Structures are given as structure tokens and as C-alpha cells.
């Protein structure tokens, strides 16, 4: 499968990428690791006239923790996230998602920024970023702006990123009581249902909960009913935890495809969110 011909330019740094975006307009597309874009180009579902390769821009990859705040460069590969002990402790929800995403070769090339900017409705990270209440830093001609995850993922393959901006980093607060539970599509590995849970514990209770799904609707979405029902529950109260995870996708427009009907997806949403809650409540050292 051969993509439509395109011009290829390499950006040396972020200002250079912005200059190239301004020069080539909406015909241009940024290329990071290419593990969403290149398959789409090979299927001719995408045919950009110009590819601006940002993959080698220095300083955009890596994980940095400063107290409770964690910053991840947009070009950080899934493999780097999956290998990070720091992330395993401070944001297990993201660490688990990175480990369950694709396969080793895909994780070696694909980037967290690229995956988020792609906005695939079955991708793992959107739900994770919603649960983490992550902040996306978008760099444009007039400097940077921060967009919260709730406003970043706007629809199927759509995000708040404009064609004149580069996603440069993602930040969130440490989330030790978080977890991701995923029902893998057996062939593609994408999430049929992915449930991301981030709990704040205080005084022997769940003081706050953020819960989000991917794969279930046209874009990742939060489950406010589950979040409210989990709040105030004691971690040992299995009956109330079970009840909180029932009808988890209520109010959402649940997708249906030849692999999983809407009814089945909704049922699995309950099962997987319950598993993620249980994992998030596991005592950690």
C-alpha cells in the first residue's frame, strides 16, 4: 500500500515547525512517531500534501516529576512511558495504558503526543488523560495555551488543537490510586472498552473520583454518574462499589459495530470500570 505522494520537510525546533505550518497551511500535517498517521496514509484515508516531521526535535521527549506534578514531553514514546518506574508509582493509570497499547514495535515508535493529537475514539490515552485531568500545552504563533483534557478531546478524530499549533507537553498531578482496565479487540488490540479511574482517598473514604471511558462512544468521555456514586464510599464497601459501577455508560451514546453491539459495550463498561476501581484501590507500597 503506497501513500499519495507528498513533500517532506524536517522541523529543527518548535518555532521552525510553526513557520512551516504557516507556510504550508492546512495541506500540511505534523508527523511524530507516525504510528497513527502512516497507516492512515497507506490506506489513503489521509493524504496530506506536505509532511512536517517533528520527530527529531530535541527537548520534546522525557518524563519529569517535580513534587506532585508530572510533565511529559509530547514526543515521549509509549515504550518510555511503559518502562518508567516513576510512572508506575505516580500514575499507574497511564503506565498500564502505555503497557497495553499496541505491541513492542509500535510502542518503540509511537508517541504520547501523537496519539492524543490523533483523537482516535478507541485509543487508550484519551480516557486516561480525562481521568488524570491532564493539561495539554499547545504552542502556537502567539505563545502557548493550556487546555484541560475535558476541552481537548472534542470528537471522533477531533481535538482542540488548531492547524497552526503544536502539542508540546502534557502535565498532570500525581495519581497513585489510579488504574486502567481494557478489553482488547482480539485482532486490532484497540480498546473495545477502556476504563480509566483516578481516585483521591481521604479519611478512609473515596473523597473524589474521575472516571472515563474510551472505545465506548464517538470520543472518550467521563462518567459523572459513576464519579458521584463513588464519592464518599469506603474502599472496603464492595456492595456500594458494585452499585456505583452499574449502568456506567448511562447517558452516553454507545457505539455499535460488527464486533460489539451497543448493549454489549455498555455491559462491558460496567465490568471494566469495576475492575479498574478495584485495581485503583489496591494498597501500594
Amino acid at each position: 500500500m503506497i501513500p499519495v505522494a507528498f513533500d517532506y520537510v524536517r522541523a529543527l525546533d518548535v518555532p521552525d515547525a510553526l513557520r512551516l505550518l504557516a507556510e504550508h497551511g492546512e495541506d500540511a500535517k505534523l508527523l511524530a512517531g507516525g504510528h497513527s498517521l502512516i497507516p492512515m496514509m497507506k490506506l489513503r484515508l489521509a493524504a496530506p500534501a506536505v509532511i512536517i516531521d517533528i520527530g527529531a526535535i530535541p527537548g520534546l521527549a522525557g518524563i519529569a516529576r517535580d513534587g506532585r506534578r508530572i510533565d511529559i514531553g509530547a514526543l515521549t514514546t509509549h515504550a518510555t512511558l511503559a518502562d518508567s518506574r516513576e510512572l508506575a508509582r505516580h500514575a499507574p493509570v497511564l503506565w498500564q495504558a502505555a503497557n497495553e497499547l499496541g505491541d513492542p514495535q509500535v510502542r518503540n515508535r509511537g508517541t504520547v503526543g501523537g496519539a492524543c493529537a490523533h483523537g482516535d475514539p478507541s485509543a487508550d490515552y484519551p480516557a486516561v488523560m480525562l481521568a488524570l485531568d491532564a493539561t495539554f500545552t499547545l504552542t502556537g504563533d502567539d505563545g502557548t495555551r493550556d487546555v484541560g483534557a475535558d476541552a481537548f478531546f472534542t470528537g471522533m478524530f477531533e481535538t482542540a488543537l488548531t492547524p497552526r499549533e503544536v502539542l508540546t507537553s502534557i502535565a498532570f498531578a500525581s495519581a497513585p490510586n489510579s488504574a486502567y482496565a481494557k478489553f482488547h479487540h482480539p485482532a486490532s488490540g484497540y480498546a473495545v472498552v477502556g476504563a480509566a479511574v483516578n481516585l483521591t482517598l481521604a479519611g478512609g473514604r473515596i473523597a473524589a473520583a474521575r472516571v472515563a471511558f474510551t472505545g465506548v462512544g464517538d470520543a472518550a468521555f467521563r462518567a459523572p454518574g459513576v464519579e458521584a456514586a463513588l464519592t464518599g464510599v469506603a474502599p472496603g464497601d464492595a456492595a456500594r462499589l458494585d452499585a456505583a459501577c452499574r449502568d456506567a455508560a448511562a447517558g452516553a451514546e454507545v457505539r455499535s459495530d460488527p464486533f460489539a453491539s451497543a448493549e454489549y459495550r455498555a455491559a462491558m463498561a460496567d465490568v471494566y470500570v469495576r475492575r479498574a476501581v478495584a485495581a485503583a484501590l489496591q494498597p501500594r507500597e
Partner: protein
Amino acid sequence: MKVTIRVNGDERTLDVEPRLLLVQALREELGLTGTHVGCDTSSCGACTVLLDGVSVKSCTMFAVQADGRRVTTIEGIGSQTDLHPMQEAFWTQHGLQCGFCTPGMIMSAIDLIRRNPDPSEEEIRFGIEGNICRCTGYENIVKAVTVAAAAVRAK
């Protein structure tokens, strides 16, 4: 567009169209047909090569993205008379049936034992998740990786 890639230790300069995939550059421009194309959709791993020592699917990369970097293919890891320990183990453990997936399987396995020199059976199965064997000969492939890992550790 001119690109220079160090392929199996030799610097090779090619004039390529940007849309040329790395696997096509290897097979069609350089005649290195040991790297196979199976699915052509980033799923099967038959096209796996090492990029600066790390396993990648060469059907999901443009040759221009490899400019200035090192690529190792199945042709670059051993010779007929001096097999790489992973090749040796695939041979002695019967880790192949039709052989189509073997080059990619071996390149993935080399990266796997570089990261984890003493992998458990479960870690091997997880580590070759990106490679599909349509003969379903996974049992002996896992055995071969175990044997090769031990041979490399003993070196």
C-alpha cells in the same frame, strides 16, 4: 530526496521519494529481501528491523525518517558459517515452520533479550506480541528465544 542510512554497518546513500517506506528501500533499492512484508498494516511484524538497535516495523516508517540512523536487518546479524545465537536457537529448537515470519520474529527477539536478558516464558510471549506466526508455531519460537537468551548470557 537524498538520505544516508547505515545499513548493516555500511553507509548507503539513496535518492528516494518521501513516500517510499523503509521496508521498500531495504528490499527494492538495496536488495535486502530477508525483511518480509506480511500484512502491510503494522500488525504482523514480518518487516521488523532494528533502528539504532531498537525493534521497529519497517512498513510503518518512511525511509526519509531513517536518514542518519543505523538500520540492522536479518542479513546483518550473522552469516551462513557464523549464525547469531538467535538464528542458531531457531534452527535447533525448530522455531520455524514455513519461515515467513522468522526474520521479523528473530529481530524482535533480539531486541527483547537486549532489554531483558533472562525473560520468563510469559515475558517472551508478551515481548513477541507484535509478531504473528500464521503457522501458529509459537511453542517452539518461545523455546528458541529461551535457549538463545541463555546462550547470550553464557557468552
